[in-house]
């Protein structure tokens, strides 16, 4: 018990003295996950909105597929991205394996279905409410997409948050494609796993605390925004 207390004290020291190794890992984690969420949003939001307002054969099947992909096992995604990027894979020539870019790709694959599925839900609800009004104003199905995305912005923030939560907490995929290389691809989750197995609990605890603080801060910020939005009548009725 005394050991744990000591480790915890060291962990606090690492955080508050601005340990360069710890904060480099935190920054890399943030960089990878923010990029992944940004790219996944660029793909997932139009895809989700398109599924919500589009009418085409196979739409239902695509919705079921995207919903199912939300539960993709990260290690399997890691394996598939590894196969794609490995020297003998179709994209091996790009030499992206064991780089932060490979980790971003793996996280994009994991996060895109989450953002797409949640976006579809939000936009579909809004599209039903706005349907006659937008058609009355001469807005076509296609041109209604930016309107619906903008008007659903508060609910879509939650979709982005869910995506960020998935990305920042991800271990299995990023450890396979990133390789957990010190100062190159070592992020918070992979470091926690590694340092715990080595018995270096102080760094693991410090990173765990930062991870939790990040998750709570982002959730809190979005909750405050949502509350403010509801007060201003921007949320869903």
């Amino acid at each position, binding site marked *: 018990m005394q050991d744990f207390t000591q480790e915890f004290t060291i962990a606090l020291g690492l955080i508050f003295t601005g340990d360069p190794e710890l904060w480099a890992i935190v920054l890399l984690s943030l960089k990878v996950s923010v990029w992944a969420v940004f790219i996944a949003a660029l793909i997932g939001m139009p895809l989700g909105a398109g599924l919500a307002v589009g009418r085409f054969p196979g739409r239902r099947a695509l919705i079921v597929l995207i919903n199912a992909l939300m539960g993709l096992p990260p290690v399997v995604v890691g394996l598939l991205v590894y196969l794609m990027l490995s020297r003998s894979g179709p994209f091996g020539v790009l030499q992206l394996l064991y780089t932060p870019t490979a980790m971003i790709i793996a996280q994009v694959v994991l996060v895109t279905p989450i953002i797409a599925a949640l976006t579809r839900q939000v936009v579909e609800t809004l599209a039903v*409410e*706005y349907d*006659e009004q937008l058609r*009355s104003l001469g*807005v076509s199905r296609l041109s209604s997409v930016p*309107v619906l995305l903008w*008007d659903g912005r508060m609910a879509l923030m939650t979709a982005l948050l869910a995506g960020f939560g998935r990305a920042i907490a991800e271990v299995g995929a990023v450890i396979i494609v990133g390789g957990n290389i010190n100062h190159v691809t070592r992020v918070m989750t992979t470091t926690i796993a590694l340092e715990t197995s080595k018995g270096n609990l102080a760094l693991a605890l410090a990173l765990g605390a930062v991870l939790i603080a990040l998750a709570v801060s982002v959730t809190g910020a979005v909750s405050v925004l949502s509350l403010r939005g509801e007060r201003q*009548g921007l*949320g869903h009725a």
Partner: protein
Amino acid sequence: MRDFSVMTDHPILSVRGLSIARDGKALLGVDHLDLDGPGPTIILGPNGAGKSLLLRCLHGLITPDRGTVTQGGQTLTDQVRAGQAMVFQRPVLLRRSVAGNLDFVLRRRGLSRAARKTECEGLLAQGGLEDKARQSARSLSGGEAQRLAILRALACKPSVLFLDEPTSALDPQATQEIEQMVLRASDQGLRVVMVTHDIGQARRLARDVVMMHGGRVVEQGLAAQMFAAPENGMIRRFLSGGLMV
């Protein structure tokens, strides 16, 4: 605003052989209906008479199983529909500010920023909402929201304005404000076609009336004549406060 009575010999709105059925049940069957003259036209009838369905067909929101709707002799293409606007029973306001709702339509008309600002201010003043421009549209009261919905419809610069029971959920004060807006718009040359089941409102607003029941037009004519001496016994009963079942 365009004046169709000057532009063409065709009625402003014309319906021929219109029918809609669902699950084998006829919901709407209007063989012949012409709406002409300056209006306002009030489509009157009890619940389930097919008034809102007819209005949606006139506005091109619903495609009938059979029949045609024309405006000024032209079928309802997107270009023709751009000259129409509609206000719904429950106003659907965008999740933006009051001014943002108007700006959305003005932008679609391709106006410059300066022109949009000027027109927006004019419209807000017209609806008594100038002090609420920056407020969220979704936080307006029922009457204010419906006034904004009408202003947004007017921002489209339509020649025909459809209103589907716009005051059904409003108190007398808010109803009066809406009715004044409708009459002002009509006086300025806008062709108003409004649905209501409120006989008092029909008496206050209508120049001509289309009476519906069971998905069919049972009588059409000038309001003064129809209210004074309705031809149909069922209408006489309805106008005198009886139940029309």
